[in-house]
Every structure is written in C-alpha cells, then in structure tokens.
C-alpha cells in the first residue's frame, strides 16, 4: 500500500496559489431506501493557508456534508476534492485514515471525548499516533485548561469539554481544523471562550480553520464567510473588518 504522499505526487493539479483545500463540482447524494437526498449539488470552494472560514446556512444546506468530505470522513458522489494539490477523492480507506491522522483536526458539537480518559489522556491519545505533535500540556495550556488536566470528561463543564476537544484536535499541529457547530451545545459565555481558543490557534499556529455554525454572530470573526443554501454555496463574503472572538455576542 503506497503512502498517500507518494500517491499525491502523481496527481498534481493546478490549485490556486496558497490554497490548502479545493473542492470542484462536488455533489453528494444519500440514498436511504427509496428516498434520495441531494445534500450537495455542485460545490466549488478554496480554503487558503491560515484562513479562518465560517460556513453558515440552515439545517440540511450541505455544510456538514462538505466538511465531512473535506475531513476524509465521507466521499463525494461526484466531483473532486484536493488537499495541497493531492486528490482526496481517489484515496483508499487506509489513505484516508492516514490523512486524518496527520493533517486534519476535528471539533464536533458533542465533543466526542473518550469518557474513560482524563483531559490530559484524551489529548495524549493523539500525540501517541501523530508524527510531530506538540506537548500535551502545551496544547491544553493553549485552550486554558492547564489546571483541569486530570479531570475526566464527566467532571468537566460543556465548555471545558469542548476546549479539551480543541486541544486534542490541535495537538498534532494539523494544517486544517474542521469544526462542526463547536458552540452548538454551549451557552453564549462558554461558547465565546471556545471561540477565543479557536481564534488564538488560528492566529498563533496559522492553522486553516473552517467553522460550521448556525449562529450568524460568529461570522464577524472570520476572514471569509460561505453562505450555504440547498446544497450550494449561495454567497461568499470577505470580511474587511474582523472582530475579536471576545467581542462576538449572541
């Protein structure tokens, strides 16, 4: 089984300069029984290095589907997805696993921490398999949890759990951080603390970050905002003036 880096070199394509991610005419159709759901109806998108992008849109508009495809959790029905010039859509299951392991960090609405591991251990879990991770303590310090490291998820608040999830996502120094409704289960105060952590990582580490949200207020902290509607990107906006995460309110 060739390493995906080797596969990549054979599939060089033209990506816009500085683009980490590119999606081209991506569609996704789910079939459950006789019902056919067209989740994506042809999406083109580029994400650039160090960019913080917010994806907005109603439920079922296709944002999560696109994020999952970008993260190697799902495959498009048609179209192509490129990561640093390499076509993800041709990857085998094993290559996708390697891709997730080495390059992508995920943050989900429901944290998905391992309940039997402490905060520190949840993060350490990833350093054990990553190529060039930062220190676990360092990652936890970045999300302000240096004093809660030895607590189990059940002993942490929702915001704290989400910050552990963020620390776990960034400890491997991923090129891309994909966040699906990271504040969806949180109240606004803790939500803002989580956004601050995401913003700091984007600034300090230069990690390309994509955040899916229902919460329109969050768009103000993004470099660019993609408005999803009915499986397509209805509108792309560039924020001339961004506000700090701390100033976001809802």
């Amino acid at each position, binding site marked *: 089984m060739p390493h995906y880096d080797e596969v990549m070199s054979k599939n060089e394509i033209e990506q816009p300069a500085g683009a980490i991610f590119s999606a081209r005419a991506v569609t996704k159709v789910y079939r459950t029984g006789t019902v056919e759901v067209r989740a994506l109806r042809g999406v083109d998108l580029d994400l650039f290095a160090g960019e913080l992008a917010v994806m907005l849109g109603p439920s079922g508009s296709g944002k999560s589907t696109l994020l999952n495809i970008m993260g190697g959790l799902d495959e498009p029905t048609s179209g192509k997805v490129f990561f640093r010039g390499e076509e993800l859509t041709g990857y085998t299951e094993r290559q996708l696993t390697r891709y997730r392991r080495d390059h992508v960090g995920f943050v989900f609405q429901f944290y998905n921490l391992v309940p*039997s*591991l402490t905060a520190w251990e949840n993060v350490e879990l990833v350093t054990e398999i990553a190529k060039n991770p930062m220190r676990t303590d360092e990652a936890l310090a970045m999300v302000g949890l240096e004093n809660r490291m030895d607590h189990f998820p059940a002993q942490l608040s929702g915001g704290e759990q989400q910050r552990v999830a963020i620390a776990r996502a960034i400890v491997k120094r991923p090129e891309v951080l994909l966040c699906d409704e990271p504040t969806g289960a949180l109240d606004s105060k803790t939500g803002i603390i989580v956004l601050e952590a995401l913003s700091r990582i984007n600034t300090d580490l230069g990690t390309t970050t994509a955040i899916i949200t229902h919460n329109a207020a969050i768009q103000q902290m993004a470099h660019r905002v993609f408005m999803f509607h009915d499986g397509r990107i209805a509108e792309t906006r560039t924020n001339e003036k961004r506000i700090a995460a701390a100033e976001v309110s809802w």
Partner: protein
Amino acid sequence: MRVLDRKIVRDIRRLWAQVFAVAMVMACGVATIVLAVGAYRSLEETRATFYQRQDFADIFATVTRAPLRLASRIESIPGVAAADFRIVQPLVLDMQGMREPATGIVISIPAIGEPRLNKPYLRQGRLPAVGRTDEVAIVEKFAKAHALAPGDGFDALINGKRRHLRITGVVLSPEYIYALAPGDLMPDERRFGVMFMPRPALEGIYDMKGAFNSISLAVNDHSAFPAIIDEIDRLLKPYGSRGAIERKDQISNAFLDNELLQLRSMALVIPPIFLFVSAFLVNMILSRLVSLEREQIGLFKAVGYGEAAIATHYAKLVLVIAAIGLVIGSAAGAWLGRGLTKLYGDFFTFPYLIFRESPDLYALAGGITALAALAGAAKAIWSVTTLPPAVAMRPAAPIRYRRLLGGFGAHINLLSQTATMALRHLVRRPVRTATTALGTSFSVAILTTALFMFDSLDVMIDTVFFQGERENAIVSFATTHDRNVVTDIAALPGVLRVEPFRSTPVKMTNGHREVKLEISALPADGDLGRVLSEDSLPVRLPDAGMLIPHRVAGKLDLRPGDIVSVELLLHGGRTVDVPVVGIIQSLIGLGAYMEIGALDRLVGDGRRVSGARVSIDANQIDRMYAVLKTTPAIASFSFLDNTLEKFREIIEQNISIMTSVYIGLAVIITFGVVYNSARIQLAERARELASLRVLGFTRAEVSSVLLIELGVIIALAQPLGWLLGYGFAWSVIHGFESDLFRVPFVVEPATFARASLVVVAAGVMTAMIARRRIDRFDLVSVLKTRE
C-alpha cells in the same frame, strides 16, 4: 398481534446473533439434561426389563463342590423365592485364526425346561440338546467377534480333554451384560466367551453328578437379605464357599451401576454450568437493551403502560430466547441421547433398548431454563420498572471512570491511551468483568475436566501395568497346586522368570463391619508382581501380617497395628487373627496382600500356589500359546499386553467421544460469552470508537481497544478455569471411585495448557467475528447523535 409483541419479534430479529449465542448455551444445558437423564432412564429401564424378563438373581454364591441335596434346605430359607444350582467351569479355547488361546466359562442349563434364574436370551438357533456332550450355546459378542453362527464349531480344552464343540445357538445373558473374564480389567469379547451346556453333559465331564458349584437365588423379601446371606454362608461353609454376594456386587451389574452413576453425575454437574452461563448472558443482553430503550420505556410509562405490562414485555422477550434454546436443546438432547443409549447398548449387551420418552424431562428442562433466563433478566427488568417516567426519558447519567492506581504516574506513558481506555472500562464494571471471566472460565474448566482423564489413566496404566504388574502373563489354576509346579512352569518354552502367587477368598471382620475380599500372597522379593505404597513405591511384603488398601481400611475402620479377624472361606470358615501392617494403594478391585509363606502358615496346608506370574521371551510367545492350548491344569490366563491394548482401545474410544463433546460444549460457551460481551462493548462504545477512527486511528488500532478488553477477560478466565476444572476433575474422580476400581487423580500442566489453548483459540475467532462490526461503523452518523 399486540404492538409490544410485534416489538419482541423485531427485537429478536435485530439481535439475532446475540439471541442465537445465548440460545445455544441454553440448548447445551437442556441437551445435557435430556441426554444424560434420558440415557440414564433408558439404560436403567432396559436393564430392569432385561433382568426381570430373564429372572436375574438377587444373590450369588460359589462353592468348590456341594451336594444337590442341600437344594431343598436352601429353597426353604424364608424369603427365598427361587434357587438355581449350577455347574460353572472355566475352560481354555482354541479359536481359529487366533494365535493366542482364549478362555471361557461354561454354565449348566437344566436338562428339562429352562433355567429358573439368569435365563439366557436366545438370539439365534436353539439351546443345546440334552444327551449331547458336544453342543453349546454361546454369547453373542463372542460369536460376533469370531464370526460364528449356529452350525459352526471350535475346540476347547475341557477338564483336560480337547473337544470339538458345535454351536447350536447364540444367546445373551443377564449375568454377562458386561462380560469380564475372571481377573481381567476390561471386557474382551474376542478372548473371553461365555457358553451354556446341558447339566448332564457337564456332570459327566466334570464329575459333578448330584453336585453344584454355583448357586443363584431370587429373593421375594428384600429385608431378609442379610439373614439369607448368613444362612447360605452357614450352609455352604463346609463346601468351600467363597461367600454369598448380593446383586449389587455381581461384577457385570456393578459395572453397569458404575456407568449409570456416571451418567447421573453428568446430569447433575454439567447442566447447571450452562444454565448459570445463560442466565448471566441474558442479564448482560437485557441490561444493555434496557439501557438503550430507557427513553422508550419512559415513553411507554408516560402514555399509560403499567409497570407490570413493561416487565411482562421484557420477560416475554427472555422467554422467547429460552424457548429457542429449549427447542434446539431438546432436539439435540433427544438425538444424542438415542445415540448414547445405542452406544451403551452395543458396549453392554442388551437384546433390546427401551427408550423412555420423558415428557416430564422436557417440562423440567424447560422450566429450569426459563427460570434461569428470568433470574438473569430479573435485575434489568426490575431496574426499568422502578424508574419514574420522567427520569427514564432522560438519558442515563454518564459512567464515572476512575484512575487505575489512584492517579499514580498520571502523566507517564506506562500504557498506551487505548490500553488505558480498555482497562478503565473493565475496572469500571468489576461485576460484569468478573462474571464474564467466570463464564469463560467454565469453558476452561469443562475442557480440563474432559482432558485430565488422559493424564489420570496414563498414570493408572503406568502404575498398574508397569509398576505393579510387570509380568507378561498370569496363569491361574483351577485349584491350588504344590509349590513345585513353579519348576514345571519355568521349564515351559520362552519362560524367563516365574513368580508364584497364592490367593484365597476371605471375610474380614472388625466389630460389626465386614468385607469379603481376596488375600493375594506373593513372594517378598517379587519383581513381576509388586505391591505399591500409596505414593506408588514398591513395598516389601512383611514376614507376617498383611497390607490392606486404603479403601478397605476405611470400610473396616482399620489402622496399621490393628488386628483383624479373617475368616478363611475355602478352609471350612476357620477364623484367624491377622495384624494389619500397612496401608497400600489399590487401583483395581479390593485385595489384601501377604507374603506367600505367611499365608501358607496361616492356612496351614503346606506350600501351595494358585497360579504364577511369568515373563516370557517375546520371540517364543507362539510356543507358549501352543502349550497353554493343551495344558489341562491351567484354568485361565491373561496376557498383560493384550489386556493393556484392550484397555487403551476402550478408553480411547470412550474418552475421545467424550472429549469431542466437551470441546464442542466449551466452544459454545466461549462463543456465547465472548461474542455477547464484544457486541455489548461495541454497542456501548460505538461513539467512542468511532471518535478514534475520526482522529485518525486505523481499524486495527481501534479494534485493539476491544481486543485488549476481551484479551484481559479471557486471560483472567484461565487461572479461574484451571481452578474450577481442578475441582470438577476431583469430583469426577471421586464419583468414579468404587470397589471395582479407583482412578488416580492427576492433572498434568499440559492439560491446563490444552484447555486454555482451545478456549483462547475459540475466543480469538469469536472476537474476530465481532471485530468486523468496527469496519462497518458509520462514522458520520455515530458522531452526529448524542448518546
């Protein structure tokens, strides 16, 4: 169908693999009940019917020679319903196609009418005609072993004369269902034949006119047994009586009893194991189902279903599983039971087999299975019915995990985080971990119990055939001879060494306790026949006094140094006091040992021998065979190599069948336990494991969490299983112990290793089947829902 019942059908369809695994374990429990009890009843019934139809006697006695005029006195003993006075003689047979001689026993049948007791059952041909001295009826097994039929014949050495005997009929005898030659360890249908001849012929041949040497009695008042036996012994004392015995001590019957006892203990030990394991599996599955359906249960309650209705719903689900197990188990048990009974029917010789259909047994098995299942489910059902609906509709509180070792070495990577996940999960649910390990350990225990018999029998073979009896052959005379006969035997072709022995039947009495047995007397410095201590070391026979086996010491409450009263049955019932010098080992039969000279002095009739142990040059064995076929004085002989070979053959047959059955049972338990625990872990931790996949862990790495947990459980099960197996094996050995034989208790380390190997292999295969589920995880959907 009501909606809730429809839910049961769908639940079972959805959980079919787990349901099947539990049902199979239950089926094993049911099958072993139906099999063992069914075979027990069939065999018991067949034997009882056969005994009844052939008028099998209640009391047996052997004398040297007694006059028939005693008959009326014996028949008039109160309680005696019928008596039969027979001539029974050993003979040597020269069978075509057999290098070595065979031995046999010939039994008289009355000149007129059929025997009153122990009637032969005619299978083929007719009984020999009165007036003929060359006609016999032979037992079926012997006929089959030599492909003989009525009309065929063979040569026999009868009272010193070679005669050609013609077969008129083939019969079965209730006395020889288990046809063991005198002094042999295993029945050998080729080398031992039982035959019947009319009394007049035997009277003539053996000069027994107006006499008998074997008596059998039917008793109509069982409370009169002791009195009858005493009276018989008293009447026959002057005629060289060996002492009357009851039916339970009759050798063929005693072996059958032993076999029935084993079937019964199987029925008592094995099914409870399976029922326990299935109760535990039901508990595991139902607890999981209930926790998954917690919110539904809240809803049922919210819309007005009562606690009883909900409890009944889950109980029905459990009962359906039990019913599946019952159906599979009953069918398998009935089928195997018939097979086993047939096997017994072939081994023992019955003319017919009576299968007892036992509806009560199925009802019993069904009832016990349902109870076990409901007992397993009780806690889970109780926990749901008692939850208030509002609480039930909320998700259960998250599991609280704890650090292992109280947080010691918190940030040191002693274990990978995936291993930590696995171990914390195990520690978090100690009861479940322990019961799962216990369940798996039963597989190890069952296998240990099945496999240790090879070890014990190896030691038994080594002890009996290589430490104790080191001769090639034992030659016995019909009556005792002067010691000089040893010189004659030594002169036979190929004989390398001869050691005489003398044996005499006695009744030993200590207070109110008494035992009938034989005293065997050997040379003190014997090398062929050796007496072994309880640690299997050769013991030098003392110049005076005797050595008795542990079991006899127990029966008579004797210790070394005690004096026991010994009645010499063949010598007019003279009673002498003999000191017990030591306790020895005895694996086969009950026998006391003395130095040969000491016994001679005790009896006081000079230097006599009953036979000799000989070692023979293997190259000259054929010449030895030829001599035996023509030497009149020799009543019987056994060749140890043949006995050993037969012993091994029968054991291997029986044990290999048993072993494969037990391996099957162990694999089913392992599968049931491991598969269910894997599936439940997977269900409980789907989200966690899917998260690992998202984080970039490979399938193999994610599986390792599951496999480590299962591995730890299987590993924990091993020592536990060894311990349980050791206990089961011990109880099996003690269940076997009887006056007939005792098997030494030996479990070799390799047996534990083999048992573990089978269980580990079955466990690994099962885990691999369960592991495939991880490959089918839908990562996206697992992560989207909140548990």
